[in-house]
C-alpha cells in the first residue's frame, strides 16, 4: 500500500534528521495518492516545499524507488490547511449568504439525477422493505431523520434506484435544493484532478455546498487514503450543517477493506439498510410491473419462467425481458415459454449451480492446456497458480461453494488459501482485461 510505503520513508528519514527539523518539515507532509507510480505529497506552505526540495528530495526519491517497484515521479504540492473541518453552525451572516446563494443558484447539479428512478417505480418486497422505508423517511425530512443513509446490497438490486428516488422526491417538494449524484470513482477522479490543477477549492466548494450528496459504490474508497480524508471532511461539513448524505455499497462499512475507522463509524451514525436478492414472488412482481410499464402483455407462464430462471439480480431480470420482447419482435413469433427458454439460455442462472466442481476443473485445465492433476496439486508455478485461482473463483462465484468446500475439492487446501485466491481474482478481473476475458471464455465453455 502506497501510504505505508510513505510511512516507511518517513520512519527512515526521521532517524536521519534532527527532531526539530522532523517536527517542522517532515511531519506535516501528507501522502495524497499514488497514481501509477506518481507519488503525490502535500506540504502546508512554500517554506516547507523549499526546504524539502533543498534537503530531502533526493533521499525521498531514492527511498521511494527502493520501496516501490512502480515508482516514477515525486510530486510535491502546497496545500493550505484550509481543509480543516468546520465544527459549528454557520454564523448568522454566513447563513444569510448561503440562503441567498441558494435562491439565486440554478439547479444545474440536479441534472445528474435520473428522473425515471422514483419511489413509484420501485417494487417493494421483503428483500428491500427496510431500505425503502428509510429512503422514504429521508426524502421527507432530508438531513434530519437518517443521516447518513447507507444502502448496501448486491449488483442490480436497486440501490442506485432508491438513491435517485430520494433525490427526485426532494426535488419535487423543493426544486431549489442542490443535489449531486456521483460515483465514488468520479469523486476520486475529480479530487485528484483538482489537486493537480490546483482547483481544490472549487472541488471543495462543489461538494460542501450541496444540500444532498449521493455517492454510489462507496466501497471503492478502499485503499484511497487521500480521497478518504477529503471525503471525511466533506462528510463532516455536510453532516454538521444537517445536509443529507446517502451512500451505497456492495457490503457493510466494516467489510470495506482499508477504510478508515472514523469513516466506518460515521457511516453507522445514521441508518444502514440492506437490499437482498428478491424472492420468486418479488421477482414476479417486478417483472410484471416492468412489462406493464412498457405496455406489454406477456403470458403469465413466460413471466414466471423468467422469474424462475433469473434469480440473482433485478437488472438482469429487466434485461432479459427486454431481450425476449426484442427477439420475439424481430423473429415475428409469439412469446411462449419455450421461446423464452431458448432465448434466455445464456442468461439462465439456474444451470450454474448444476455445474460440478469436477467439470470446472476439467474445463479450466483444458483451457490452459494443463493437467487436472496440476490444478489439484500444490506446485507453486505461476502457470499453475493462476488457473488454480480461477477454479477457486468460479467455484465460489458460479457454484456458490463455501471456502472450506472449495478447499476440500482442491485436495484439502486451507480455506484461507481459497479466500486469498478468490479475492485476488476479484481484484485482477477489475484490473486486467486478459483475466476478464479468460473467465468469460471459461464460463462459456462451462455452458456447453
Amino acid at each position, binding site marked *: 500500500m502506497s501510504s505505508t510505503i510513505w510511512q516507511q520513508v518517513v520512519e527512515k528519514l526521521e532517524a536521519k534528521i534532527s527532531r526539530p527539523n522532523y517536527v517542522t518539515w517532515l511531519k506535516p507532509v501528507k501522502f495524497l495518492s499514488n497514481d501509477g507510480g506518481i507519488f503525490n505529497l502535500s506540504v502546508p506552505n*512554500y517554506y516547507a516545499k523549499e526546504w524539502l526540495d533543498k534537503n530531502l528530495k533526493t533521499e525521498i526519491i531514492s527511498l521511494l524507488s527502493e520501496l516501490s517497484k512502480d515508482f516514477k515521479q515525486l510530486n510535491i504540492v502546497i496545500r493550505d490547511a484550509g481543509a480543516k473541518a468546520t465544527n459549528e453552525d454557520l454564523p*448568522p451572516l454566513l447563513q444569510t449568504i448561503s440562503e441567498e446563494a441558494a435562491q439565486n443558484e440554478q439547479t444545474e447539479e440536479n441534472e445528474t439525477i435520473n428522473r425515471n428512478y422514483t419511489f413509484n417505480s420501485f417494487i417493494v418486497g421483503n428483500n428491500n422493505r427496510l431500505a425503502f422505508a428509510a429512503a422514504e423517511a429521508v426524502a421527507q425530512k432530508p438531513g434530519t431523520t437518517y443521516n447518513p443513509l447507507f444502502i448496501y446490497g448486491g449488483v442490480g438490486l436497486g440501490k442506485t434506484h432508491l438513491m435517485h428516488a430520494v433525490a427526485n422526491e426532494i426535488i419535487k417538494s423543493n426544486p431549489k435544493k442542490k443535489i449531486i449524484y456521483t460515483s465514488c470513482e468520479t469523486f476520486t477522479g475529480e479530487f485528484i484532478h483538482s489537486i493537480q490543477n*490546483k482547483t481544490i477549492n472549487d472541488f471543495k466548494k462543489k461538494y460542501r455546498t450541496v444540500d444532498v450528496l449521493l455517492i454510489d459504490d462507496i466501497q471503492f474508497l478502499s485503499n484511497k487514503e487521500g480521497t478518504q480524508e477529503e471525503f471525511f471532511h466533506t462528510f463532516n461539513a455536510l453532516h454538521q450543517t444537517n445536509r443529507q448524505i446517502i451512500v451505497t455499497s456492495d457490503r457493510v462499512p466494516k467489510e470495506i477493506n482499508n477504510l478508515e475507522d472514523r469513516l466506518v463509524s460515521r457511516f453507522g451514525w445514521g441508518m444502514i439498510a440492506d437490499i437482498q436478492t428478491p424472492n420468486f414472488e418479488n421477482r414476479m412482481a417486478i417483472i410484471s410491473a416492468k412489462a406493464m410499464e412498457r405496455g406489454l402483455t406477456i403470458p403469465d407462464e413466460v413471466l414466471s419462467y423468467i422469474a424462475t430462471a433469473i434469480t440473482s439480480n433485478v437488472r438482469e431480470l429487466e434485461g432479459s425481458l427486454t431481450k425476449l420482447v426484442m427477439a420475439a419482435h424481430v423473429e415475428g413469433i409469439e412469446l411462449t415459454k419455450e421461446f423464452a427458454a431458448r432465448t434466455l439460455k445464456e442468461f439462465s442462472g439456474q444451470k450454474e449451480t448444476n455445474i460440478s466442481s469436477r467439470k470446472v476443473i476439467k474445463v479450466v485445465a483444458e483451457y490452459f492446456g494443463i493437467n487436472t492433476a496440476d490444478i489439484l496439486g500444490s506446485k507453486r508455478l505461476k502457470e499453475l497458480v493462476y488457473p488454480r485461482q480461477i477454479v477457486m473463483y468460479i467455484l465460489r462465484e458460479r457454484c456458490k461453494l463455501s471456502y472450506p468446500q472449495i478447499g476440500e475439492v482442491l485436495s484439502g487446501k486451507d480455506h484461507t488459501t481459497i479466500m486469498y485466491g478468490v479475492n485476488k481474482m476479484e481484484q485482477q478481473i477489475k484490473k486486467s482485461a486478459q483475466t476478464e476475458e479468460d473467465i468469460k471464455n471459461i464460463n462459456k465453455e462451462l455452458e456447453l
Partner: protein
Amino acid sequence: MKFTTQKEELLKYLNIVSRLASTRSTLPILQNIYLVVNGNNLLIRSTDLEQTLEVNINGEGESSGAVTIPARLLTEYLQNNTDKIVTISNDDLIIKINSANHDATLRGMAAEDYPTLPEVAYDFTTTMSSVVLSDAINKTVFSSASDETRPILTGLLFKIEGNNLTIVGTDGYRLAKSVITIKQGKDSQFIIPKRSLQELLRILPLNEEVTLSLAQNQCCAQVGDTKLITRVIEGNFPAFESIIPKKHSLEVAINSQVLLQSLKLASLFSRDSAFSTNLEIKGDNLIITATSPVLGDNSNKITLAKKSDTDFKISVNAQYLIDILSVLSGDVLLQFIDQKSPVVVRAHLDERYLYLVMPLRGE
C-alpha cells in the same frame, strides 16, 4: 561579514523584524534573524513560516557574508547599549558586536539552514498611500475571525476593481468594508491573513507609499526599505455583497464618542450575557440599556439631533459596536431595518466605509 551602522537605525528595524522570530517555535533557528551583508547593504530577515519580514539598511560594509543571530538577545542588547555606532562581524558562527564602550560575542547558527522563500514572479503590482491603507486596515481588521474554525474568515478580502481597492473583514457576526483608491491595479481578489495585516500596520508608517505585489499564493507589501511577504489564504470569501442592506427604514446620526461612552457603560453590565445591550429610539432620545441578573442594570440616554417619527428597539452585542466606534471619529449614522436585520454603521467622514452587525435575538 563585517558591517558598521547607526545603532538607532539598526534597532528601529530590528524591533520590527524580530517580532516574527518566535521563541516558541519548534525549530530553533526560527528564533534567529537572518543577516546578509552585501557591499554597503545589510539585509535582515525573519520568518514564522507564514510570513516573512525583510529590511535593507545602509551602512559601511567591509566584507560580505551571511549568518543568523538570536533575535531577542541582539535586540535587547542593542536596546541597552548606549553607543551610537555598532559594528557586527562574524567568525563563522561566532558573532561579534563591537561599539565604542561595549563588546559582545553571540553564538549564531548557519545561514544555510535558515528557511528560504522561493522567488516568485508576481502577477501585478499596485501602489497606494500608506496612510490611506493603514486607515482602511485599521477600520476592518478587527472584524475578521480570530479562531481558526473557518480559515477563510481569519483573512481579509482584498478586491481590486479598476482604481478601487475594497477591503472586507467578517467573522460571521459582523462585517466591515472599506474602499480606497489605488494608483493602478488589475481586477482581482485575494485573501490576506489578519495577522499579516496587523504586521503591515506596524510597518506602514515607515514610508508614504506602499507597493502591493501579488502572485498566486503569496503577497508582498513593500514600504520603503521594508518588505512583508505573506501567504494568501486559499478559498473563496463569502459573497458579502448580498448581505449589505440596500435600504433602511430608520436612520439616526450621533456622535461616535458619545455613543461609545454609553456603550462602554452598558457593556459593564452585559459582560456575562454576550454583551447583550438594548438600543431604543423614542422620539428624540436614544436609550441604551443593559441588565445583568447578578450585577445590576444600567441605562443611558443620548439626545438625538433629529426627532425620530417611529419608535424602535433592537438588541445587539455592545462589544461589536465598541470595536468600531473606537476606530471612528466624528458623527456616525446608525441605520436599522427591523429587529432581525443587520444594523448598519456608516461614518460621516468616510462615506465609502460600512460596518454591519447582526442583532441578537430579542426575547
